[in-house]
């Protein structure tokens, strides 16, 4: 399903008038498409970008903040990243109010699992429960799907660090690196070129790659800490730590990224001669 959307969809919207098969979630079109689900994905591709990268010692989540006004007075620590449980966190792209419902549900599910089994919920188990909920909104009830895509980052003792992506259809996949939201096609191809599978990336490499990819896919050119949110999921002394980078840490990361870019540019020009 994902292949279809990312490949063909952009050309479809510009020429497509409201089809007879798109007003209800619970019917297929003659070509076997669920238009409401696809429209939900269109809503997400307008939203601020989010990137997730799996490193050998942790997971990096990075997101672009769409700051709409300087009058905004945000009290919560993050706009696009949320902690689901101690060992699972997520980044969001899409309609924030829809995301809040699902995040609340995810938190409840994680606690219910812990209450029943006295063990933290494995990452994929949590994801399955959320995705089953999303799927329900594509098959019955007549309610529209959730206009949110998630990147879940977590650790469990069965599979170590994991990164998952889930979309409005209720499908999910495990990824080594993934971008969602605005400009995700170019971001994903950048990730494909730069993600180092063989020597397995460290957390610092992943942070720099995330910064590089986000900067290239954002509308503006120069990244600044107030436009970005970065979080890492790592393990320290047997405990999983979810850490949102502070303004200072972001500034030093941006500086590091800039100096690396300068080095790369110098190397390229040196090589030509």
């Amino acid at each position, binding site marked *: 399903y994902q292949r279809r959307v990312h490949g063909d969809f952009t050309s479809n919207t510009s020429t497509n008038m409201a089809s007879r098969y798109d007003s209800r979630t619970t019917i297929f079109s003659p070509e076997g498409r669920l238009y409401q689900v696809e429209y939900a994905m269109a809503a997400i591709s307008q939203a601020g970008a989010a990137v997730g990268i799996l490193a050998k010692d942790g997971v990096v989540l990075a997101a672009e903040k769409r700051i709409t006004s300087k009058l905004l007075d945000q009290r*919560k*620590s993050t706009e696009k990243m949320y*902690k*689901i*449980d101690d060992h699972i966190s997520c980044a969001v792209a899409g309609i924030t109010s829809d995301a809040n419902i699902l995040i*609340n549900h995810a*938190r*409840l599910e994680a*606690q*219910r699992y*812990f*209450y029943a089994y*006295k063990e933290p919920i494995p990452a994929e188990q949590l994801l399955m429960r959320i995705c089953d909920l999303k799927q329900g909104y594509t098959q019955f009830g007549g309610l529209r799907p959730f206009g949110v895509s998630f990147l879940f980052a977590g650790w469990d003792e069965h599979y170590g660090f994991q990164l998952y992506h889930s979309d409005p259809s209720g499908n999910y996949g495990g990824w080594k690196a993934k971008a969602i939201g605005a400009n995700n096609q170019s971001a994903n191809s950048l990730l494909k070129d730069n993600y180092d599978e063989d020597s397995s990336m460290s957390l610092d490499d992943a942070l720099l790659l995330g910064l590089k990819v986000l900067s290239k896919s954002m509308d503006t050119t120069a990244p600044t800490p107030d436009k970005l949110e970065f979080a890492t999921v790592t393990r320290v002394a047997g405990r999983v730590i979810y850490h949102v980078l502070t303004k200072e840490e972001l500034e030093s990361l941006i500086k590091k990224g800039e100096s690396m870019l300068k080095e790369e540019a110098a190397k390229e020009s040196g090589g030509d001669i």
Partner: protein
Amino acid sequence: MSIMEYNGSAVVAMTGKNCVAIASDMRYGIRMQTLAADMRKIFKMHDQLFVGISGLATDMQTVEQKLRFRTKLYELREERNIKPSVFANMVSSMLYERRFGPYFIEPVICGLEDKKDQKNVPFICTTDLIGAQCFTNDFLVAGTTTDQLYGVCEAMYKPDMEPEDLFETISQCLLAAVDRDCLSGWGAIVHVITPDQVITRELKSRQD
């Protein structure tokens, strides 16, 4: 025999100068038979909040798990630790939800919280099995050993004790009281909570 005396327990909490202490026995028994001497009846919710639960052992475990569930969600949503006084209200309303089929427990909530003009103010509170709260400034007791604990605490307590003093006092009170109750004892554990750290000590006591 009352259902609250089926397992037996002793829990006591005391306030000091910018510190609190909570202590309990470690007996797990069914009626007159002792089955274990390593049962934890005091649970940490976060670094500055502990809750000790006396009463029926199965309800003690269930209530602890339910409280952990609710506390965790509170922390995730509000992005901060729950204050002891707020936690006490939560315990009270949770117990009252089961007004006509209650959990057979008596919890003792103990912690440090920041008030408007003061930091790290000691807070202790206990409720009955259906959530009626009792707040004091000095000490609170729960379990099958309450009569004895009231006596020793009233005699030995003095306000504004330093952490070391508080530890001595609460330990001696607990050990003296459980010796006069056949359903509690078999070891004791004391947590002293200060603004910087929590010191947990297990006491050597009579194993009977």
